Structures are given as C-alpha cells and as structure tokens.
C-alpha cells in the first residue's frame, strides 16, 4: 500500500490517498468538488543493478502552477558518470524540473530519486550528493567570496581549504576578500561554479553554466565540466547554447510545453528525425552540364549552387552517386565536406510550432 499526497489543481487543497502500485483511484476534492483520477505508479521496474547505475531518477513528475501543468507527467533517468543535456525553449519546464529535483518546489505527484534517495522523504540525504549552479547565481553580497564559499563548506561539512583552491582555479584569487556585491556578472558566475564544486559532489546540476561569461570563462567552465566527468561525476546541464550541449553531452532530453518530446544521444535524435547531412562539393570549375546531371540524381533533398560549390542535402548513401555523376560529366572535385545536422536543427524540429 502506498500513501500519496496530491494537491487539487483547482483550489490547491491537499488530498491524501492510499493505493497499490498500478491502481487507478478516482479523486474528489472535499473543498471544491473537483473530480480527477490518479494512477499509482507501478513499481519502478528497475532492477537493483540498474538502480545502482542511476544517479537521478524522475518518474511521472507533475507540477501544477495555478491550474496549468508546468511539468506534465515527465520521466527520465540520468546515468552515473554521464553528462546529460536538458533542453527546451523558454517556459518549457526545465527550471521547474530542476527545482523539483532539488526539492525547491512541492511537486503535485511523481517520484524523484537521487542516488536511490527519495527527495520527498529523504531530501536532506539526497541533497548531500548534489552540487548546484542555479540559472540566477546569487550570493550574500556583504560577505567576501571566501566567506561565502566557507559558509557552503561548513554546511557541507568539508574543509575550508578547498574554498581557497577553488577560488584560485576559477581565477578569482585577487578578489578572495572582496565583497561579492562588488563583483561583475562574470565573476559571480565563476564563483557560482566554484561553489557548486565544494565537497566534490558526485552529481552536478548546472542551469545555464555559461550565462554571463566571457569566452575565456566559457572555456574554463567547459573544461571544468569535462574534468568533473573524467573524475566520475554525473552532470545534468540545462543550456540554451546548443553547440555547447552538443559538444559536451552524452545524452540529451528535450522538453517542450512541460512534456518530454525526445530523449537520446544527439546521433540517435538525428536518426529519429531522419535529418540528412549537408554535403559541400568544391569543384575546379562548375558547368551547367554538371549542375543538370547532379539535379537528376534521385534522393537529393535540396541543392544549392554558389561560386564553384554544390551544396546537396541527401542521405550518405546518395553522396557516392553524386560524386560519380560529377566525375562522369567531367567535373574536377577539389574538396568534399560533410556536415551532420546540428543539435540546433534537431532542437528546432522537435520544438516546431513554438
């Protein structure tokens, strides 16, 4: 028997229900008579081995704000040691999901586990594993950079010496005793990243880690993320910089309008959407004859001509046929460049209509 507390989406009244895994319960709010139903999640369907391999588990998460589901029944797993990209347009529910994982918001229903600790029941234990960089990094402005980090170190029961090392690593040694209120946005972001690494947490949750950083800062943060992965950390990154996500993430999850629309590796998502690569063929001299014969090749999605270049969007299997056709018509190829569809294109496809 499972006990569950659900908030009425209409009047926010708390409704307590009991049921067995998989059981469907009809609900009636005692305050506003709103009717609804709730299906108790069936058992995790995750064996012990897999449980050990999962750092973050989100299952059937629902979060409602003023009658609207900001997050609507989403489920995903972040495996230990991977960098997991969490993407979505503005207002898609990314930050709400991250806040739910951290216990910052009271979820309406669903299960969230961090290293097998239920956030709802053992939030304090679950959060011991986490380092968090929020989208809007804020510090106690009257305290110095060192005092701010020491406060976190003390809360995490780790050595204060680590704070000095991290401040140095993020290039803030000169400002160690300066009040954070006098810091620039980039400095605050770097200090925020340093703060999230205090205690060497096995799980990092980074919400827009490159926000407000100059290119040098972006490179620094990116290399730090890679370093943390090498050390075995699990990293959940939410970012609008898709090139960054493509570069560092093992898997990505795209959320749109509170629902997960895709979840795979970037290559996997490309295959799902069947987005074809763009092949640029540079010729010594381009003739009308070559253009005509290339256009006749079956299976080409799009052709663009510029100077002595032909851009064709087609399947990799068609690529050979295009090359043979050009050579047969007397064209001399200087260079061939294949560009796979970017994560940006994948993202746009998945979130079409916004």
């Amino acid at each position: 028997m499972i006990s569950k507390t659900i908030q009425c989406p209409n009047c926010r009244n708390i409704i307590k229900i009991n049921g067995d895994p998989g059981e469907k319960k009809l609900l009636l709010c005692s305050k506003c008579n709103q009717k609804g139903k709730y299906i108790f999640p069936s058992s995790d369907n995750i064996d012990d081995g897999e449980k050990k391999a999962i750092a973050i588990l989100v299952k059937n998460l629902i979060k409602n704000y003023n009658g609207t589901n900001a997050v609507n029944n989403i489920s995903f797993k972040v495996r230990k040691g991977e960098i997991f990209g969490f993407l979505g347009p503005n207002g898609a529910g990314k930050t709400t999901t991250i806040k739910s994982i951290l216990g910052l918001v009271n979820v309406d229903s669903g299960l969230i586990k961090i290293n097998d600790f239920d956030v709802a029941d053992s939030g304090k234990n679950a959060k011991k594993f986490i380092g968090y960089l929020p989208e809007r990094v804020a510090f106690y402005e009257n305290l110095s950079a060192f005092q701010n980090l020491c406060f976190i170190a003390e809360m995490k029961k780790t050595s204060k010496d680590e704070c000095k090392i991290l401040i140095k690593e993020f290039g803030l040694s000169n400002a160690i005793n300066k009040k954070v209120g006098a810091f620039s946005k980039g400095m605050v972001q770097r200090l925020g990243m340093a703060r999230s690494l205090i205690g060497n947490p096995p799980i990092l949750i980074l919400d827009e880690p490159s926000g407000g950083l100059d290119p040098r800062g972006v490179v620094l943060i990116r290399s730090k993320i890679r370093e943390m992965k090498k050390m075995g950390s699990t990293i959940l990154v939410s970012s609008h910089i898709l090139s960054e996500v493509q570069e560092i993430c093992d898997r990505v999850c795209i959320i749109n309008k509170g629902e997960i629309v895709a979840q795979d590796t970037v290559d996997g998502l490309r295959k799902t959407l069947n987005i074809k690569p763009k092949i640029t063929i540079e010729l010594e001299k381009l003739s009308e004859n070559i253009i005509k014969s290339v256009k006749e090749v079956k299976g080409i999605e799009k052709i663009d001509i510029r100077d002595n270049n032909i851009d064709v969007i087609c399947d990799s299997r068609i690529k050979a046929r295009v090359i043979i056709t050009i050579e047969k018509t007397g064209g001399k190829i200087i260079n061939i460049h294949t560009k796979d569809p970017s994560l940006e294109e994948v993202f746009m496809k998945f979130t079409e209509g916004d």
Partner: protein
Amino acid sequence: MNSIFTISKKELLDNVRNKWIIILTIIFASLTLVVSYFGSIFTEGWQDLGITIQGMMSLVQLLIPIIALMLGYSAIIGEIEKGSMNSLLSLPVTRLEILLGKFIGLGSLLAITIIIGFGLAGIVIGFNVSDVDYAGYIIFIFATILIGLVFLVLALFLSTLFNKRSTAMGGAIFLWFFFNIILPIVFVGILAASSDIINIVNNAPDWYHILNLFNPLQVYSFLVTLNVGAALSLDNLSIAYPEYYSNILMTIILLFWIICFMILSYWRFNKRDI
C-alpha cells in the same frame, strides 16, 4: 543542529559586515544615556535606573518592534527574491533548520545589541547615581530582548507569507502601527464605550485586563512595571493590576507568541515554492 548554528553564524556575520550591529548598539546606548540625563522634568542630571527605565519604556515600545521587524521582514523573501534561497535549499538542510538558523542569528544580533547598548548605558548610569536597582534593570533588558524576539518572529512570518519583499515590508509597517497605535486605541475605545471612563485607571474591568494580554507590547510593559513598580509609582499613579498578572504569566505569553509564530512561519515556508 550544526546547520542551524552555521546559518545563524552567517546571519550574524552578514549583519556585522552590514554595520547594523554597531549602529543599533550606539542607538540603544545613546538613547538610554540621553533619557537618563535629560529625561526627567523634576530633577536635573543623571536619574536612577528605575526612572530611566520608566522613560525608556515607551521609547523601547516604539523602537524595538520596528528594528526587529526591519531585521526580519526580508530574511526569507529577500533571499528568495535575490535567488540565494535556491542555493541554500540545494544544500543538505531542511526548511525548519533554515528558519531556526535565521531566527537564532537575527535574534542573537538583537540580543547582543540590546545587552551591549543598554548594558553600557546602565554601567555609566550606575557610576553616577546611588542606590542602583540592577535587578530591575536586568529584567528590563531581558523583557526588551523578549519583545524584540516576538516582533522578529512576526517579521519572519511576514517574510514567509508574502511573495514580494516590498509587500512584506508594508506588512511589517502595518504590524508596527497595529500593535503600537490601532490595538491600544481599539481596546481603550471598547473600555470607554462600556464603562465609566473616570475610574478606568484603578478599576478597569477584568475583561479589559485580559484583553490587554493579547497585545505583546502591553504584556512587555506589564512585565517591566511588575518588577520596577516602585520606581514607576513615583508620580503617584500606581496602576492596579489583577493578582494573576505575574512575571511567569507575562513571560509565558511572550514565549507563546514566539513559538506560535515560529510554527506558523514553518508551515508557510514549507508549503511555498521557491
């Protein structure tokens, strides 16, 4: 427990860097000395601690609540608005520990400033007058800390109740007016409407004495006057309190306010999405 201590230490440190602690201590000490030296119209120079307390009480009733309210109204909502609450709650700490840490930290700040400010002034006065009632003065300081804590916890409740710092500040100012001006006027108004106004001071009805216990500022004033009554009766206006008015009752009432609003603050903070 360790987290509560760390948070309260941070609150204290934050306010020390903010110069609040120094400003408040100077205000308390100088006010006490000014009241003691210039406060009496009957005599010139330094006054006894009892007379000083008499002069200080109305000032404390105006000043301490507003200071405590200003210290506490943004403790939670301020951090939520700034964004630092996100980071704080992502640490292995419960919302109750955050609330208690903030209350203990800000409460210590208030207590330290009251003890140093009034204490220093008390020592100066003690050197300049004879027959000093130190016990009464210590009770006055204790009661002042207690009323400060009552208003601090009320401010914390406002901080968890409202979604904007500015609204919480408005609420804090309203509370100050409510307990200092509106509530006493309402009580006296009810009394005037229901009984003979001439005999109010000595023969106020029982229900009026009970009603007054609902205003923490009145309770504070009873707690002080019950202990330094001799000094306060110098102007021949001794107030007849009912027998059940006692130090313990007044202390319990003030503690009840603190505990009650701490529970309410926790309930509200726990329900809130950050």
